[in-house]
């Protein structure tokens, strides 16, 4: 299953990329699953997606919970807590 990942702000800088298209292995079906999949890459990804890191996630531009199910073609954005206004 292919999905689109986006990274914003400090997370984008930390990872050195604004996003990517990714083919997920079978078995990765939730947002929490993607987060763990990214963390397992090691290096900056491991740091950015460790259990302690405050990372918010949006599924198709709506804030979403880790247990949310994903499907092919979804847009999944990870970012730090927002600081606008």
């Amino acid at each position: 299953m292919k999905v689109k990942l986006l990274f914003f702000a400090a997370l984008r800088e930390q990872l050195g990329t604004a996003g990517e298209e990714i083919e997920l292995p079978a078995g990765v079906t939730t947002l929490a699953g993607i987060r763990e999949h990214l963390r397992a890459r090691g290096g900056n990804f491991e740091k950015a997606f460790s259990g302690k890191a405050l990372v918010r996630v949006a599924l198709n531009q709506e804030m979403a919970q880790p247990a949310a199910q994903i499907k092919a073609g979804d847009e999944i954005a990870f970012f730090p807590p927002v600081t606008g206004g």
Partner: protein
Amino acid sequence: MKIAVQREDFDAGAEMRALSRDPKVGAVASFVGVVRDVPMTLEHYAGMTEREIGKIVDEAKSRWQVMDCTVIHRIGDLKPTDQIVLVAMASEHRGDAFAACEFVMDYLKTRAPFWKREQTADGARWVEARASDDQAADRWRQEKSDAAGG
């Protein structure tokens, strides 16, 4: 209703006058956020930002009598004294306009996907979210459940 995310500055007076053209409007309450000491760059999640502000405004309309409103948030490079954000609410009476304006501002700070990067003398740094902003937004949830309970 007007929601805009833009690089350009805005004219708060003109925006407020535009909200009071309907003779039924008796109150326009507004908030303008301004850059304090440090130059900054504002990044956002194009698409989601506009949707999220729209949802916040819809929620305000469901709670208070809001006849029209304008929300403008700037992005890109801003310097001290620059305007960042305008929230303006038009209503028949001031109570609804004041409350809706504060509500939208509080929720915008905690839910709309914007991020500030400050250019300090020691280099650039991302602004960290503040617990006090979460508390300001949570207050409205509390007030709603109080109202529902009593």
